[in-house]
């Protein structure tokens, strides 16, 4: 059940340092949105505010509103744990739990929370999630082996399976392919295309072709200089961003003329 995200004038801080300033963006349900921009412009920082992972870092705080289907994530009395179980996240580096088997990794969201689940339900969930992550055929014979024994691309898909197993409404991905080979990258891009039919997907990428291939809409972030806050420069349909951007900075960046 995909949900929409609306951000109103969001400022993101690391202690006193304003890392991202004045971002307003509307992310449609069942769509793929790509964040692009030069290194250090605050894409990861902004992405992490969308599921309240930013405040895990000491000193991390935000000002402004993030609405998930109209409910403010940062409203009074909102439990970040509830937010995170509805908005999942896949990290840049695959990080399966080293102490758990492949199966337990997929079930981590359920088991770590202490939720009781019957054996057959668990098996169904594992198969469904692994199929959803295009990994089932590769690992179905070794579900009880450790997750760290998989290749990097398989590990990343395992992390995606783990994320979709908790049935979130939104999936955030921070450069999910940057540690992967072209084949695994294609596998994950295909997967993102499939995930779109059930989830709202937001992906950070440095790969322009990837943004063009997978996303419906693209947001370009930029930074005026070191120590300055990152800002959202342009947000539009991906085809528009890549073929006729409105801003000069966007055009320079997507055409590779950027510093």
């Amino acid at each position, binding site marked *: 059940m995909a949900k929409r995200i609306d951000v109103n004038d969001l400022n993101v801080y690391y202690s006193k340092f304003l890392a991202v300033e004045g971002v307003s963006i509307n992310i449609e349900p069942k769509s793929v949105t790509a964040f692009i921009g030069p290194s250090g412009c605050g894409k990861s920082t902004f992405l992490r505010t969308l599921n309240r992972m930013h405040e895990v870092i000491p000193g991390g705080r935000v000002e402004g509103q993030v609405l998930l289907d109209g409910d403010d994530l940062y409203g009074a009395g909102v439990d970040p744990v509830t937010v995170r179980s509805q908005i999942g996240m896949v990290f840049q580096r695959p990080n399966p*739990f080293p102490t758990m088997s492949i199966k337990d990794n997929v079930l981590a969201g359920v088991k770590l*929370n202490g939720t009781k689940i019957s054996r057959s339900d668990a098996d169904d969930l594992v198969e469904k999630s692994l199929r959803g992550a295009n990994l089932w055929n590769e690992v179905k014979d070794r579900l009880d082996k*450790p997750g760290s024994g998989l290749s990097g691309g398989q590990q990343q898909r395992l992390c995606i399976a783990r994320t979709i197993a908790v049935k979130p409404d939104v999936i955030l991905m921070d450069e999910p392919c940057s540690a992967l080979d072209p084949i695994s990258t294609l596998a994950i891009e295909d997967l993102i295309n499939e995930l779109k039919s059930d989830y709202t997907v937001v992906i950070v990428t440095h790969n322009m072709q990837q943004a063009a291939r997978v996303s419906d809409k693209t947001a370009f972030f930029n930074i005026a200089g070191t120590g300055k806050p990152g800002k959202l420069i342009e947000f539009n349909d991906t085809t528009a961003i890549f073929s006729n951007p409105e801003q000069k900075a966007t055009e320079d960046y997507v055409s590779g003329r950027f510093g």
Partner: protein
Amino acid sequence: MSATTTNLNNKANGNSAPPVRKRNSLAKGKLPKWAIWAIAAGSIVLGAAASTLTGFNVASFAIYSAIIFLIAASVITTVVEGKRRGKNAMWTYLIYAAFIVALIPLASVLYTVLQKGLPGINSHFLFSSMNGVTGAVDNQTVANGEPVIGGAYHAVMGTLLITLWATLISVPVGMLTAVYLVEYGQGKALSKAITFFVDVMTGIPSIVAGLFAAALFGIILGPNARMGIVAAVALSVLMIPTVVRSTEEMLKIVPNELREASFALGVRRWRTILKVVIPTAISGIASGVTLAIARVIGETAPILVTAGIASNINLNVFANWMSTLPTFIYYQILTPTSPTNVDPSVQRAWAAALLLILMVMALNLIARLVASIFAPKKGR
């Protein structure tokens, strides 16, 4: 000279080489394998000669041989194989020498304890106490040439029980402290204070820990409240800082990515710590705890002032005095059961020392086993 050696080598390897073979310009002169043994043999002969000149003894013989070997081996390697390899040889042999020097005390301790302790180890020693064994008994066994009577069972049980209780106290306290320091208290004033006091605790002399526990229980139960649990408290004062430190180090090296992965799945912090962080670090924590036990199991002074000394079997840590192996050894040596015939007491002391060493070794082995059992699984 270097050219000759190379030719020799080429000839030796010639059989397997292709028929028309250019000399490998990358290969440099190299000493044949036997050369180093020849140098060693020569050094031993020269070392013996040098030692005889100054009145032969084993120590000077070994030292002279080692020095001659070191110089000869590095000089010859330098001449034949070049400067870099010469230096490499010198440092390699120096490191071997340092290793052997470090091993000497260990080997000699083991040898002495085995030699003096083994005769005293038998099932009577292992399974009976000193209850009723008086000076008269010892005098009689010596006079009749009978085997020594009296054993260390009570001390073995005392050691096990007191250490067990000390572990039961220190592991929860130490682990929770470490969890607070790493997972909750980062940068807070309280955690800085705790770290400071843990550092101070690390330096507390063991007798002070013993006096502290004795005084603490003295306030509650009145003076002369000596029993196993007081000793366990004293030992846990010594163990807690070690447990905190090792657990803290292990928790710190758990990658932050795993915590974030767990948070991102909507898992609460305490569950993340309990089910992700600690299981990932458990093998290191377990071996840290075992090493902390190994450190306190040989303590003598704090036991004497807290649990006293006993010659009978007492399995209740909450009442009456208790002996442990270290206090047993101490008393057998300092106040032999029979002042006129000390041999039985000395034999019992060495046998107990051997038992203590075996216990510590067993603990170290257990630590390795535990670490490998809990280690994050690898492989496909």
